[in-house]
């Protein structure tokens, strides 16, 4: 196998990791966000600190956590607190730099639906619901969304606002008074969307080998293309090796 070949999941994790800064306090979920944080910590952000909604601060997981409250998060962490404390003292108070979000639908203004497809009271498909995401999206200084680029996942408007991005755009988000700056990037397997000054998510980066056409075909609205459209740096061998050999050696998430 060519060591520099990579799959879509690896591409998303590596690009999400690069968005993190050294010293960031990150409110993190299991799966791809957890891998992105651990990769960042082993490369350019050794002082990044992971906070889990279960109430674990400064986790140093020795194995790949498989649930949001995996015991490996606790052993070796700097602190454990109640969920009420983690959501108030850390998140509501403004001590979280970065939140990771995902969901079944993400719209033109970065709003997320993780609750229901169809009518709420007569659901066509029930999804898991908010969990921590309603508050993370509002109160983390900046949020990143990681999701595969598919048309059904990118409708113009979401069926249900589980957590908000820029609402209807313009000043709609800032008028709500929420402290966080909202979604700063949507990382997909085709590229990276970022908000323009109107809060609309536009294509700002393409991954190597991906095209604007592919992005247009897989987005449910007329997506705008940044006048400064750039290309992301291909995954480096170091990043791929850490992911495959240290972080997810059994290929549970990085298939």
């Amino acid at each position, binding site marked *: 196998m060519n060591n520099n070949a990579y799959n879509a999941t690896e591409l998303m994790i590596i690009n999400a990791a690069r968005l993190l800064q050294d010293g960031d306090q990150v409110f993190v979920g299991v799966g791809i966000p957890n891998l992105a944080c651990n990769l960042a910590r082993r490369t350019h952000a050794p002082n990044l600190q992971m906070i889990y909604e*279960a109430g674990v601060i400064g986790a140093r997981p020795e194995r790949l956590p498989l*649930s949001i409250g995996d*015991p490996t998060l*606790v052993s070796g962490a700097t602190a454990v607190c109640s969920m009420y404390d983690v*959501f108030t003292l850390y998140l509501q108070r403004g001590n979280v730099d970065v939140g990771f979000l995902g969901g079944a639908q993400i719209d033109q203004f970065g709003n997320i639906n993780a609750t229901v497809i169809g009518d709420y009271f007569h659901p066509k498909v029930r999804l898991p*619901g*908010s*969990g*921590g995401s309603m508050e993370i999206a509002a109160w983390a200084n900046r949020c990143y969304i990681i999701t595969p680029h598919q048309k059904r996942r990118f409708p113009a408007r979401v069926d249900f606002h589980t957590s*908000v991005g820029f609402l209807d755009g313009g000043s709609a988000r800032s008028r709500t008074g929420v402290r966080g700056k909202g979604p700063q990037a949507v990382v997909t397997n085709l590229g990276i969307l970022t908000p323009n000054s109107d809060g609309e998510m536009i294509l700002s980066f393409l991954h190597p080998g991906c095209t604007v056409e592919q992005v247009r075909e897989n987005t449910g609205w007329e997506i705008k293309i940044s006048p400064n459209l750039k290309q992301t740096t291909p995954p480096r061998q170091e990043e791929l090796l850490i992911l495959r050999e240290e972080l997810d050696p059994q290929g549970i998430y990085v298939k």
Partner: protein
Amino acid sequence: MREMMSKVVSLQEAIQTFVHDGDLVYAAGFTHLIPFAAGHEIIRQKRKDLILARATPDLIYDQMIAAGCARKVVFSYSGNPGVGSLKWLREGMQNGTLEWEEYSHFSMISRLQAGASGLPFMPMKLTGATDLERVNPQYRRITDPYTGEEVMAVPPLLPDVAIVHVQRCDAEGNAQIWGIIGEQKEAAFASKHVILTAEEIVDEEVIRSDPNRTLIPGMIVNAVCHVPYCAHPSYTQGYYDRDNDFYLAWEELSKDEQTVQAYLDEWVFGVKDRDEYWQKLGEEVQKRLKPKSKLSYPVDYGSY
């Protein structure tokens, strides 16, 4: 000096005494320490019309819903953590056979905090997301009397009974937990009655040697049950690991009425208690879930 009052009873007796048809039940524990053995005992005693509240209903409530114990769920995340969805909960909501009341984690936990603190409501900052408050009238906007700005309020959650699994407690119910402490303390203080299940029941002296670790005081506890391995397939920090294989297997075991009935017949109705369940799981599973030891440094409280 007063005599310590022993509250030690069997889990069967505790459920019989403190869990009634129609009760609002909170089986505590965020991923960690979920009291599965108590859920199974409630199923064995065929309780019905329960209102089941938990941030994450998890497999414990999916099993109780499948067994016909529940009328309603109160929750904030309805997935099978790390796996997918909870079929019986999801289908109950989709086909209208199950009532539900939905929150975000923070508002669910805030309801417990209000209940535990004896407050009429708990305020939270606004999140900009208005759909959940539109569909759940328990969310109310109120005006902050100091700034005049709007805040969100949720009412107290006051369960009839909380069930809390702990690593160790004494016979009076002074309970110590380490690892993820989720919402156990709040659930216990918010509830009318508290059932503790414990990996170990220890002398009062052990508890008193490390008072900072006590999360739940005996004064609010009604029953203390010695139930080792109560939390399987969830876990108890330092005692046994989460059985992720079982969390994955539940997808298949829960897929239709036949498979779920077969599971309940074999693993709930087919065993008399948790001890028999644990033996039945067998040595291979027991060995796989046993963690290596990692001790904390001791602290010195000093003698005064």
